[in-house]
């Protein structure tokens, strides 16, 4: 989705068509564009789109019509099963190029690496039907509106995951104005900067560290490597999320923010809330609350947490590594729950540092498909290879110091703090700075898009 063709052709053409279209045509244009993008990557993805939209719309209507009868529960179960199947069959992580069928040793359904939107559409479809079942709102009888919500293409790559009740008023009344378009452009540019300058570089750093045999990896290089992987995951997902929010802003939608400086969290539960928060809220509402009964604790709660974390991790890719990492996360969350009181007595900065160290310690389970490699890597991080640093560590520091420092500043919330404190609140200054930095970022991103090494264009989704 990220390329010069997206920025220089798709964006202006779609924006122009959308802005000049009369209101009733806008929804259809969004739907057709979504289908076109899916088809562009792999026409097989249209099956996933059709199933999600049709099941969401039809089951929504049926569940609402039988709302006080037990059959509605059966219909909901069917809806969940159908969309879960779509998620498992069509969603894959291109990071290791696998979907469920390839993990199970079968030939994959799909040829290409990406089924656009397969991570988002089933979640929208399920969320809508569950809410209708829970009588949070009435079902929508206008097919186009439900279809547009389920296959809202700007969020295809990495969310944010939308709630029907929140987006419905915006689908009815789209307010496109110059400040919305400008804010959309800023978000797109920020997202592209994150993806091209930071995420790709962090992936390259991680690849460089991966070039050393784990058994001879010095501790310093191992820590640098896993830090790079952590930044890669964060910036990759948040970049696509920013771009999605930017396109939506041009269309007159204001989407929720999904990332709030997660690496500045002071606990694992805090991290879950801040890292892809819309996914967290979806999992909490539709998985955790469906399993955990009111007032129940103990095994029921543990089971609910386990399944919720597992689902959240599987969203990033249906592979064994996601399952193992989810298990490690649940372990950490359980320990954190047990030690809640003594941990709260510690100063916030100490808790943050402790959290970061522990997160980096379990992250190799996400980074390696082989558990033994992950364990070997953790061993290397803690000096198990008896080498603290070597020439390679020096090279990694000299070549990537600026990037890692920039990542720390951004993900630690320094820029957010600057904006929050309104340090550059001079109106005249802002009038000049805003267009200048957008154009500077455009030039910068174009240089990367045209010249970047194509082998690095790996997509997480």
């Amino acid at each position, binding site marked *: 989705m990220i*390329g*010069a*063709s997206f*920025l*220089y*052709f798709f*964006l*202006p053409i779609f*924006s122009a068509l959308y802005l000049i279209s009369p209101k009733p045509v806008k929804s259809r244009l969004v739907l057709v564009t979504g289908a076109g993008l899916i088809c*562009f*990557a792999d026409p097989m993805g249209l099956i996933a789109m059709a199933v999600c939209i049709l099941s969401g719309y039809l089951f929504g209507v049926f569940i609402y019509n039988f709302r006080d009868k037990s059959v509605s529960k059966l219909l909901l179960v069917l809806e969940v099963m159908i969309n879960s199947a779509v998620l498992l069959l069509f969603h894959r992580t291109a990071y290791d190029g696998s979907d469920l069928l390839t993990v199970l040793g079968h030939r994959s359904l799909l040829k*290409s690496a990406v089924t656009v939107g397969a991570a988002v559409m089933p979640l929208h479809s399920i969320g809508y039907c569950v809410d209708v079942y829970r009588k949070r709102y009435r079902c929508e009888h206008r097919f186009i509106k439900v279809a547009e919500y389920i296959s809202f293409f700007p969020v295809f790559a990495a969310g944010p995951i939308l709630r029907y009740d929140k987006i419905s008023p915006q689908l009815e009344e789209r307010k496109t104005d*110059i*400040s919305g*378009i*400008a*804010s959309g*452009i*800023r978000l797109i540019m920020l997202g592209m900067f994150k993806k091209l300058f930071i995420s790709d*570089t962090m992936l*390259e750093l991680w690849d*460089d*560290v991966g*070039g*050393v045999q784990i058994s001879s990896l010095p501790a310093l290089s191992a820590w640098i490597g896993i830090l790079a992987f952590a930044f890669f995951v964060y910036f990759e997902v948040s970049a696509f999320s920013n771009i999605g929010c930017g396109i939506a802003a041009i269309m007159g939608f204001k989407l929720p923010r999904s990332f709030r400086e997660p690496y500045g969290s002071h606990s694992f539960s805090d991290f879950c809330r801040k890292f892809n928060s819309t996914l967290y809220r979806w999992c909490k509402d539709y998985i955790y609350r469906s399993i955990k009964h009111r007032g129940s604790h103990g095994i029921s709660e543990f089971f609910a947490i386990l399944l919720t974390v597992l689902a959240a991790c599987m969203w990033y890719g249906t592979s064994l590594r996601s399952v193992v990492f989810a298990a490690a996360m649940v372990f950490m969350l359980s320990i954190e729950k047990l030690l809640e009181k003594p941990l709260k007595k510690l100063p916030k900065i100490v808790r943050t540092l402790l959290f970061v160290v522990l997160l980096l310690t379990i992250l190799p389970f996400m980074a390696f498909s082989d558990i033994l490699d992950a364990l070997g890597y953790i061993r290397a991080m803690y000096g198990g290879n008896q080498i603290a640093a070597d*020439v*390679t560590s020096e*090279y990694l520091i*000299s*070549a*990537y*110091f*600026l*990037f890692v420092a920039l990542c720390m500043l951004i993900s630690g919330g320094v820029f957010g703090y600057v904006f929050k404190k309104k340090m550059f609140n001079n*109106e*005249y200054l*802002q*009038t*000049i700075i*805003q*267009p200048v930095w*957008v*154009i500077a970022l*455009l*030039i*910068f991103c*174009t*240089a*990367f*898009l*045209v*010249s*970047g*090494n*194509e*082998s690095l264009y790996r997509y997480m989704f």
Partner: protein
Amino acid sequence: MKKFSDAITVAAFFAILIMFAVSTVFFQDDLPFERLFSKDVNVGQVVSEYVSDSFPMRKNWRSIYTNIMVFSGRRRFGDSFLAGDRLVKLDKKNGSSKVIENVAHINELAANTESPIYMMLAPTAAGVYSADVPEIFADKTQRERINDAYLQLDRRIASIDAFYPLYSARDEYVYYRTENLWTSFGAYYAYSESTKKLGLQAVTLDNYDQEFAEAGFYGSMYDSAMVSRIVPDRINIFRSKYQSPVTEVDMFDGSGAKQAESVYFRSALKSSKKTDIFLQGDKYIKTDIYTDLDNDSELLLIKGSFANTIVPFYTAHYSRITMVDPKKLKEADLTLSDVADINEYDQILVMYDIESFSYADCLDTLK
């Protein structure tokens, strides 16, 4: 005031997008309609490739990119690495090496002929300047890889050490800074070393006049990493102070034969691949070089890309040199016996750089 700023942002942003989009479509290469409508083609990929390749001012964008990268401390650009004042092509990692398989093909070739057979595996710049390249980019040093390959050779095959003379001369201009090839100087050092094994008397450099064929040459590695501080290369050729012994050069490319009178093709200097000045590079399946020497000594050279630069030096010793490129043989679905009789030659020399030799999948044509 904010509205004014937003309006400027939107207008400037879309103006730039439209300007470059229009230029890409209307003022660059032909649109790839043929490829778009051909079977088994991913339309998205074709469009992306076209936009990326035809984007206006591509060289300038690339230069901005590399200079930002160099400024921020980066030295690796894809498979090129900025080592001091030069670019070196990094050795492949995690690729499935075919050294054992390829050595077996050479051993088989030796078993089928009575002629003495020699092998020279040359290091690339990544091997000679390995001290400037971080260890993470290579599993093994090229010296080790060359020695490992030589150890597996049949006893009948004499190995020629090109690593030591090139490593000793690493402070001289033995490799191009922007192309993954050795210079005429580098080739000369390897030639001098090889003559000891081939039983020849090397012609000393003072017997040659040095000619600078091209002074501002930027090779293919520079295209992927346009680091502004890299000094352009120069292509120099050595001409004998006395009359050139070469009388005729016959080149065969599968569709027909061409003739020339020199091993240097100055027309290549006008093309994008200027190093093709040496025997037209890797264009031909077979090249026969005839000289006016009356010693009846003939050499069969099984060649990789590095051989083109060294052959002009060998012309002082043989009445005929036949160069055969296994890669081209494979492309034309031919074998060595289809183009040359190995028993006709007095000596057979297999010459590759270690990196190409490790991953070559064409040496099964040496039958």
